[in-house]
């Protein structure tokens, strides 16, 4: 299915260029080791961004992502203390995430409330719940956690894909199929493109809304699982602000914030660009960490302006 590949192509070009800049500046930067690290470090964020991408494509927004990541972590750590296997608690939390998302979607559609407000409430609710579970950082002690961390797929050039990166790719593959090979995916694009027309064309608006937020919740919960395993702990402040990073990754990945235009794989490259910027600045060593956010901000600006131009080209309306 040919869609507007232009923004994604730009994203990939930016990624390659940044990577090249890193290679020119620092020895050993241009390696599969760095690439594997970026993927490993940002896997949880990219997973959450994949879910956010669906929500944004449908014309909505989900602010509860970061709190979901934190909540999943503390609950898993708590259950770990009760002797649960992390896979069992992960399964429970992923179901919880999907259910929580579905509730948000239902409220948004049924009560006709802006998704911003509903998911903002979700943000507060889940963050508060984190503190109800624990005020401190709790460790995940189950042996599975270290087994999980030990899994790695070697890459040519000495690097490797860690288990979290592998999980992320699996999540991405499923998402690509959902987006581009199911009628639900087509409905999401239609709804984000023009809600009224979509409804007239027979798109089930309520079911699609509920499903898309459920999917968003599921992916952010899965991101939370990966984050908990990656850090082998649950911390009530974990994932603070991750929703904004996820949205940034989605936008950098070429998805229009107003919905309807974008590709699911965009979230991968958007998330990797954010990770790459952080890595570049860390490599430098002398630069203040604040530059990570500043560079990300500048890049976002550039992308938004570029997208604006793209949207203009899609509406020739009065072209004579």
């Amino acid at each position, binding site marked *: 299915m040919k869609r507007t590949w232009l923004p994604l192509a730009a994203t990939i070009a930016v990624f390659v260029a940044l990577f090249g800049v890193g290679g020119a500046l620092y020895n050993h930067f241009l390696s599969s080791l760095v690439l594997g690290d970026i993927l490993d470090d940002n896997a949880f964020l990219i997973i959450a961004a994949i879910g956010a991408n669906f929500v944004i494509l449908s014309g909505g927004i989900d602010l509860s992502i970061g709190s979901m990541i934190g909540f999943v972590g503390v609950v898993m750590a708590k259950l770990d203390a009760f002797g649960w296997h992390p896979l069992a608690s992960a399964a429970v939390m992923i179901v919880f995430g999907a259910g929580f998302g579905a509730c948000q979607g239902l409220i948004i559609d049924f009560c006709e409330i802006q998704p911003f407000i509903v998911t903002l409430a979700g943000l507060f609710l889940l963050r508060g719940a984190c503190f109800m579970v624990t005020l401190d950082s709790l460790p995940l002690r189950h042996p599975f956690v270290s087994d999980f961390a030990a899994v790695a797929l070697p890459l040519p050039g000495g690097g490797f894909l860690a288990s979290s990166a592998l999980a992320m790719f699996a999540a991405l593959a499923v998402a690509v199929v959902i987006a581009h090979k199911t009628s639900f995916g*087509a409905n999401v*694009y239609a709804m*984000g493109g*023009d809600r009224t*027309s979509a409804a007239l064309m*027979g798109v089930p608006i309520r079911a699609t809304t509920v499903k898309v937020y459920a999917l968003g919740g599921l992916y952010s919960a899965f991101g939370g699982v990966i984050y908990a395993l990656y850090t082998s702990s649950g911390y009530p402040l974990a994932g603070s602000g991750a929703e904004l990073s996820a949205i940034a990754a989605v936008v950098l990945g070429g998805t229009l914030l107003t919905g309807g235009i974008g590709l699911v794989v965009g979230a991968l490259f958007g998330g990797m660009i954010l990770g790459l910027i952080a890595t570049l600045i860390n490599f430098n060593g002398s630069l203040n960490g604040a530059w990570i956010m500043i560079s990300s901000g500048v890049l976002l600006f550039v992308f938004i302006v570029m997208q604006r131009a793209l949207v203009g080209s*899609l509406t020739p309306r009065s072209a004579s």
Partner: protein
Amino acid sequence: MTARIEIVAAAKTYPGVRALDDVDFHVAAGEVHALLGENGAGKSTLIKIMTGAATADAGELRLDGRPMRFASPADARAAGVGAVYQEVNLVPTLTVTENLALGRLPRRFGLVDWRAARVQARLRLRKLGVEIDVERPLGVYSIAIQQLVAIARALDEDTSVLVLDEPTASLDAAETARLLDIVRELKGQGLAIVFISHFLDQVYAIADRLTVLRNGRRVGVGTPQEIPPAKLVPLMLGRELEAVERARAAGQTHTGEPILVAQGLGKTRVMAPFDLTLHPGEAVGLSGLLGAGRTESAKLIFGALRADSGSLKIAGEKINPSPRASLARGIAFCPEDRKAEGIFAELSIRENIAIALQSKRGWLKALSRAEQDRLASEMIEALGIATPDAEKPVGQLSGGNQQKAVLARALVSDPRVLILDEPTRGIDVGAHAEIVALIRRLAGQGLAVLVASSELEELIAVSDRVAVLRDRAFVGELSGADINQQTIMRTIAAP
């Protein structure tokens, strides 16, 4: 002749409005049946009933003789009734294929088979003679192509009735000709087609039969030969029954320095260039059928629509029309849809008046509360607005009083030219007469008034001159004794 789709004695009431009253309508296979009527005649309601967007309170809908009941547009579609609207109801960001396939995606092994969808999309479009890249987003194509894609979507193998609601409204002449050709071809294939257009030439070019609605009732049905334009216009406007000519104040001819001169003002695709002159103290009417360009002319003069040809002079000064420039030079505009464009319904009369004045004065020179109160009560008295006090939200007033509040807002800035678009739309008879008298009085005080209206009686009562419009062009100007219903309608209908 057997009818493919048939509506018998349909009635529909919305709160306060009898939208349809005992209307019969039937379309045979291989027939193009035009549905005609002014705003509020009941066309949309009838279409909604046919396409499942509304259900009738009474009456029966039959398809090929079988009684049907459509609970939703999907029901109607499944039964073979397709519809295409003036606004292309497709998603511009989706590809052409997706737009055509959505809701009936072909599947293979449980997953969407886009290859098959593309093949089907090309096939559907080819039937209409359209060869485009179905992989590109719909939004990159012209409205004409989008309209054809919408038609392709409405046409299934089992579609037997096609409703086209103002399909040519945004098309140019060549595109319209192509669309009409396609309609003829579909008719040849045995489809029953309902065609709605305010372009009478298109209606006469394509229709086999006409049905005319007015105020929710069927007032005429027949072939184009039986209902020629000269007969159609009175039917639509409903004057043949009310032959009583209103006694009207003799129109005066105004000479001297005009306050407003439009020369060759126009906008491509919207309004052919026209000339119009307004003198102080003169009331000029704009008459024409729905879609003739009344509102567009008014907006071009005010600057709410940007003209791409011609010039506008106000009091001898040549200006580049824009709402800001017009307001600054004392031109006030009261739009047709007062709820959407004219008034802040939640704000009180006083606040609405204050906003108009304040924006003219600039925000630094605040209008004192006492001053606001004084102006508001002055206006309430001068215009006879029925309200307990100036603090009542405008939205809670009756239609007539809302319109007066709109007028008050326009008048408080002491304009020299007042442009009114449908000043009596949706208000009751008593208030109607009051507004008409008010307009006359304002003109008598030296204001130049331009009134665009679909109501002939109203125009005849207020106008010193009447400009007649047809199909987005000025086609005549009447003054003096010529301002009567027969002459105006003849001018509207004249080929």
